[in-house]
């Protein structure tokens, strides 16, 4: 059997879900025999490849760049997993949503700055008016709540998917877990 082509994507989140993924410890070795990691912040690959079997997406859609990425990932992946509360609910990134982007940037980069006040304008993606969950932009196949979902939960999700089953998470995870 050929290895499943798995990718992970990091949008507006803290990377905690990726840390949780690495927390699988020795089970990573077992998975390494079954999957090929074709794109991830953890591997050196610049362009999201075609024909991905499973894409695990961490983080909310907060910037124009996030939106471009998630559309591309959806188009190139068979199965898209919304991994963690930021992807599923927009979670902590969404706490800026009741405010205007300019007010948020002013608060962070001007009001509270002691050195070089001023919001960055070059070389960073433009923030969208609100951080939103990814299923508001693309179809999502599997939802995995948790902040972050535990290593056990992520392993269970991957193992079930590799066996051709839809993971039934039940008591394994919850919002804020």
């Amino acid at each position, binding site marked *: 059997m050929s290895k499943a082509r798995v990718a992970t994507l990091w949008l507006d989140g803290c990377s905690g879900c990726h840390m949780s993924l690495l927390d699988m410890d020795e089970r990573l070795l077992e998975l390494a025999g079954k999957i090929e990691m074709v794109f991830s912040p953890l591997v050196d690959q610049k362009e999201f490849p075609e024909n991905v079997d499973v894409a695990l997406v961490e983080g909310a859609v907060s910037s124009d760049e996030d939106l471009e990425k998630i559309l591309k990932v959806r188009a190139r992946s068979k199965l898209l997993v919304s991994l963690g509360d930021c992807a599923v609910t927009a979670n902590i990134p969404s*706490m800026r949503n*009741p405010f205007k982007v300019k007010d948020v940037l002013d608060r962070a980069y001007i009001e509270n700055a002691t050195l070089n006040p001023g919001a960055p304008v070059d070389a960073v993606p433009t923030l969208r008016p609100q951080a939103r969950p990814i*299923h508001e932009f693309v179809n999502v196949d599997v939802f995995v709540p948790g902040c972050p979902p535990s290593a056990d939960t992520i392993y269970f999700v991957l193992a079930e998917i590799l066996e051709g089953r839809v993971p039934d998470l039940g008591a394994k995870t919850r919002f*804020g877990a």
Partner: protein
Amino acid sequence: MSQAVRVITLTMDGREISARGDQTVLQVARENNMYIPTLCHLTGLARVGSCRLCLVEVKGINKLLPACVTRVEEGWEVSLNSERLSKYRKSILELLFSERNHVCAVCVSNGHCELQTLAQTLGMTHVHFAYRYPRLAVDGSHDRFVVDHNRCILCTRCVRVCDEIEGAHTWDLLGRGVNAQVITDLNQPWGESDTCTGCGKCINVCPTGALVEKGKSVREMTKQRQFLPYLTLMRERRW
């Protein structure tokens, strides 16, 4: 119990059950260890049937009935957990989550929250509706307590416990529909309330992290509910 109360028989999820005619569907289900989800209901407080999570199906009756305020009747065939009910209950939870800003990860009640637990129990993994992300106030003017309207689901447990058990009626509702919110006195800051006795009952009956003690960090706020049945009993005896 008055002598006129009859014993009746009915079925719940196919199980034959005897009950007193003055009991509610919820009481009978709980007595028989059968699960019906609830949120606004709390034993010891007046029943308002407002959250609609406890809706059940009765054969031959077209509309769904709220188990917490519906008396059982002879011969009823009640379904507690059909697919249709499960769908409605999940939708209710999704509406609650999308209406305000429930960020479990950074909530003082994370791990001790009835809304969060229900989402897990009922298998609500995401919200189909568009989140509103409203801008809502946090009132920390009281010496010991905080009300965070971002996390309030308008169950009115605080209103009822303050009125019915403490007898202060500090809490009430202001506005209608999506603009409704709980207020202290005549919509004054909690810390300036003339009627609040600082008893903390509202804190402990609140199902989420909307009413909490000051100084608690993420996951630290646990609620104590043991006092409620005793106080209810004592009030009944005295009055």
